[in-house]
């Protein structure tokens, strides 16, 4: 064996050792220098032994043993060195990792702190320091606790201490003061750190700002609370339609007791219409949203109408994961809508079936927005076209009254908008331009738009009927007025005047006049003074000429009416050849004329003619009317005449009745008086007879020288005579003697009466009887009694006993008229009516029976006696006795 190799080994070991010592102070990572130096020494020693052995400087046997030990030591040295290096590497790696960790920790956005095994914080990363705005010196140890919110500090310290004692991880939430003064929520996650030998090294904790998360959580909690307590039913479901969550409102809506009973069910269980569910699912899954109404069912099976809004929601990656749906119970609304639809249908039917045309006008656009079938028929325009126009297109520019259609219509529409319901007549035009008189009623429709409903009724027929009715009413009024006024008047002239007035006023013709047939039978019509002149001054000449113009039958307007007995009409008298007054009418501007007769019992009693300044075509209706008026007026006149005759007869009968009544009263009275008088006469006459006899005896016994005696006895005798005569008169009145007629000369009877009275010479008696002899056929005694009473009254009436009494008789037809006149004081007017009453007298010594007896006697002869009113003083009684020829 060459010693070269050994020497190389020796020197190599020496060099290695030299290099080692040269670089001893250099920092060499991962190399355990002591073990390496020791290894080098062993290698150098072993090499040195080998080299010395090769140089044979040492004993090989001994050297081998040492070398073997050196080899073993070198191997062990390598082992130590390698282990030491490995440890060095591990430690170095740990330190590097720690540094790296610290750098990493400092660069992390999370807030990280680390503590040692005593619980004191040893490090805070930059994020923490930036967050708190404090220095690491302020935070080290327990300085960090100053930034914890006071309300959280004790709780956090307790958690930390408990975890620290247990060496367990901990998690807590705390509020930490940020540099800007705001406390922010942090999620603190602490993890215990152990060294390689499981020795507790402290805690490392990361803090995450969860303020936003806390807010989000709070917001989520609020949302969840809102979801749970929301009045709107809400559900969440998966894509298969299975409900994953629902609120109480939904459970209540569908009749569940709790939401747990709802969760997990398929939405198909709630819907009675599968197609609706399919629509919802399709809408949600394909379009991401469904908004509509469907009919569902409750748990008890009752239907419910709901409005569903379902939307799809997705996860963070945008993948759809389920849907959310809100439900609104629209059952009441649907019921109302159904009711409204029914009502609308009903009203639509009403509108469509209404007899009038109904249109709905949009005032803002001034066009129709709805019309019924009648409207299309009325305006003869299709519905579609009608809905494109407004009322202006269906109206003339001006209404019949001259008002502008558009302005007038807007006025009515505005009234309707103001709440009024105007009704008015309107002239419409149909599609062909034909005028349609209509009655329109407007009313505003309840709407947020300005809509006005108009009901339009075609009043063409009504107007015709109204005109006809108006004409009939005019006729009736004319007839009524004419007849009524004719009925109120008492004469034909008044009736004709009324008729002319009424016809002129009702027809507005300015001139009316009446002709009547001549009373002398010359077949002419004579003008009357009966006129109606609207303008008297203007028609003065016409009046004067007409009142001088008679007409023959067939001549002129009155003549031809008289001849035909029918009304006549002349449209323009100036063109009429048979109108004598046409020139005058031409001067006055009178043109039209008509007339009609008034007939009574078939006879024309008057012709009424009327004139107008305008030319008026023949009006058959008016002619028929005035013909009726003429007949009616004639009938009224006829009836009036009949009534007058009836009234006269009635008056006569009443008068007769009154007379009979008076006679009956008189007779009754006289009968009573007669009975009483008979008794009185019977009772008085005997004593009076005795008195009379006694007076006669005494007159014979009393001497003539006793003048007083003679005078008183004569007085007694005279009064007794008076009493006897009164009694006799009374009996005459009451008994009513039977007549014993005979023919006598009136003059003889008058003389007989004159002889009974001592007539003073101062009273002239004049008797005139023609013819002479003036014979009468009467009861002479009773007639004499009448003359006696009348003569006595005349003598009593003549004052101063001087005067004249005139007795006259003459024959008037079949009556003998005998008058007794005196020049006395006469009878006052108030007593004249009662002079023939029984027991009426104005004389102090009168009995009130004389004239009553006279009247009774004359009436018994069939005549009358009456007091003749005289202009001068005095009294005249006139006796009227029927002259009766008596043939022997």
């Amino acid at each position, binding site marked *: 064996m060459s010693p070269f190799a*050994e020497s190389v080994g020796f020197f190599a070991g020496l060099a290695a050792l030299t*290099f080692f010592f*040269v670089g001893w102070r250099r920092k060499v990572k991962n190399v355990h220098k002591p073990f390496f130096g020791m290894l080098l020494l062993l290698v150098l020693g072993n090499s040195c032994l080998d080299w010395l052995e090769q140089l044979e400087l040492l004993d090989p046997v001994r050297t081998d043993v040492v070398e073997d030990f050196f080899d073993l030591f070198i191997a062990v040295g390598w*082992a130590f060195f390698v*282990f030491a290096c490995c440890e060095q590497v*591990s430690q170095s790696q740990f330190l590097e990792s720690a540094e790296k960790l610290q750098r990493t920790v400092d660069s992390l956005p999370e807030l990280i702190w680390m503590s040692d095994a005593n619980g004191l914080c040893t490090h805070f990363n930059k994020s923490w320091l930036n967050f708190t705005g404090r220095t690491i010196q302020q935070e080290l140890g327990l300085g960090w606790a100053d930034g914890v919110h006071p309300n959280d500090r004790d709780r956090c310290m307790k958690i930390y201490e408990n975890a620290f004692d247990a060496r367990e991880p901990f998690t807590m939430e705390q509020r930490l003061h940020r540099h800007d003064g705001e406390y922010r929520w942090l999620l603190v996650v602490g993890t215990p750190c152990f060294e390689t030998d499981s020795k507790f090294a402290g805690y490392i904790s990361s803090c995450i700002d969860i303020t936003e998360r806390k807010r989000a959580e709070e917001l989520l909690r609020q949302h969840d609370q809102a979801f749970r307590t929301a009045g709107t039913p809400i559900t969440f479901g998966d894509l298969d339609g299975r409900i994953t969550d629902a609120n109480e409102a939904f459970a209540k809506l569908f009749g569940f007791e709790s939401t747990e009973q709802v969760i997990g069910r398929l939405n198909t269980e709630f819907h009675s219409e599968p197609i609706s569910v399919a629509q919802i699912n399709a809408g949600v899954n394909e379009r991401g949203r469904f908004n509509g109404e469907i009919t569902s069912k409750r748990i008890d099976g009752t239907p419910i109408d709901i409005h569903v809004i379902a939307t799809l929601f997705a996860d963070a990656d945008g993948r759809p994961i389920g849907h959310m749906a809100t439900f609104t119970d629209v059952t009441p609304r649907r019921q109302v809508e159904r009711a409204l639809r029914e009502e609308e249908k009903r009203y639509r039917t009403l509108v469509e079936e209404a007899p009038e045309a109904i249109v709905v006008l949009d005032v803002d656009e001034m066009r129709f927005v709805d019309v019924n079938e009648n409207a299309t028929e009325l305006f003869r325009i299709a519905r579609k076209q009608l809905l494109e126009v407004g009322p202006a297109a269906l109206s003339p520019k001006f209404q019949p009254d001259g008002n502008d259609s558009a302005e007038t219509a807007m006025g009515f529409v505005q009234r309707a908008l103001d709440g009024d319901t105007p009704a008015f007549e309107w002239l419409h035009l149909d599609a062909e331009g034909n005028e349609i008189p209509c009655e329109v009623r407007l009313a505003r429709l309840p709407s947020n738009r300005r809509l006005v409903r108009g009901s339009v009724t075609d009043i063409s027929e009504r107007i015709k009927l109204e005109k006809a009715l108006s004409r009939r009413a005019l006729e009736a009024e004319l007839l009524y007025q004419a007849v009524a006024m004719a009925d109120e008047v008492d004469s034909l002239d008044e009736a004709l005047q009324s008729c002319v007035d009424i016809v002129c006023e009702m027809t507005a013709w300015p001139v009316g006049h009446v002709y009547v047939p001549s009373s002398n039978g010359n077949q002419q019509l004579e003008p009357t003074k009966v006129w109606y002149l609207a303008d008297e001054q203007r028609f003065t000449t016409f009046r004067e000429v007409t009142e001088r113009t008679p007409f023959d039958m067939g001549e002129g307007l009155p003549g031809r009416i008289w001849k035909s007995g029918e009304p006549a009409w002349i449209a323009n008298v100036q063109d009429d050849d048979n109108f004598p007054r046409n020139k005058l009418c031409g001067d006055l501007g009178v043109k039209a004329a008509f007339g009609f007769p008034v007939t009574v019992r078939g006879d024309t009693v008057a012709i009424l003619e009327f004139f107008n300044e305008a030319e008026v075509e023949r009006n058959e209706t008016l002619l028929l009317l005035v013909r009726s008026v003429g007949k009616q007026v004639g009938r009224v006149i006829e009836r009036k005449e009949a009534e007058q005759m009836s009234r006269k007869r009635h008056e006569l009968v009443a008068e007769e009745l009154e007379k009979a009544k008076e006679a009956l009263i008189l007779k009754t009275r006289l009968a009573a008086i007669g009975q009483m008088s008979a008794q009185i006469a019977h009772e008085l006459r005997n004593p009076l007879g005795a008195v009379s006899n006694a007076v006669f005896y005494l007159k014979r016994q009393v001497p003539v020288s006793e003048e007083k005696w003679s005078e008183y006895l004569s007085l007694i005798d005279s009064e007794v005579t008076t009493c006897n005569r009164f009694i006799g008169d009374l009996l005459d009145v009451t008994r009513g003697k039977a007549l014993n007629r005979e023919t006598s000369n009136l003059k003889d009877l008058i003389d007989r009466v004159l002889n009974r009275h001592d007539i003073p010479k101062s009273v002239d008696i004049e008797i005139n009887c023609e013819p002479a002899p003036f014979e009468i056929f009467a009861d002479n005694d009773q007639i004499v009694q009448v003359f006696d009473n009348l003569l006595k009254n005349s003598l009593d009436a003549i004052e101063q006993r001087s005067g004249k009494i005139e007795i006259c008789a003459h024959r008037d037809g079949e009556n003998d008229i005998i008058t007794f006149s005196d020049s006395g004081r006469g009878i006052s007017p108030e007593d004249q009516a009662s002079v023939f009453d029984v027991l009426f007298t104005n004389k102090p010594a009168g009995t009130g029976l004389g004239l009553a007896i006279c009247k009774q006697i004359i009436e018994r002869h069939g005549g009358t006696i009456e007091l003749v009113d005289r202009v001068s003083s005095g009294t005249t009684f006139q006796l009227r006795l029927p002259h009766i020829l008596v043939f022997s």
Partner: protein
Amino acid sequence: MLEERELVAVFVALAVCGFFLMNRGKLAEVPHSRLLIVSIGLLTASLVCSVIEVFVWEDTANLIQHTLAPASAVVLAIWSWLTFVRREGSST
């Protein structure tokens, strides 16, 4: 004649090699660790040859043993020079 100490040394060397190989990732952090593994490998081979020479090829094995041992020392010297003497940034 095979000595027990030689076997122990071989086993120790082999164990070191095995450990080295097992922790070669970590030991790679040691500068020029390849030279160290070469060195320990040469040493281990030398020790193995010292055992082999007892049974076969006594001379050859001995020669190899005495050659590899200095070689291991040379490699170790080189590593020492590279690690402790040579400046960083100079050529390798």
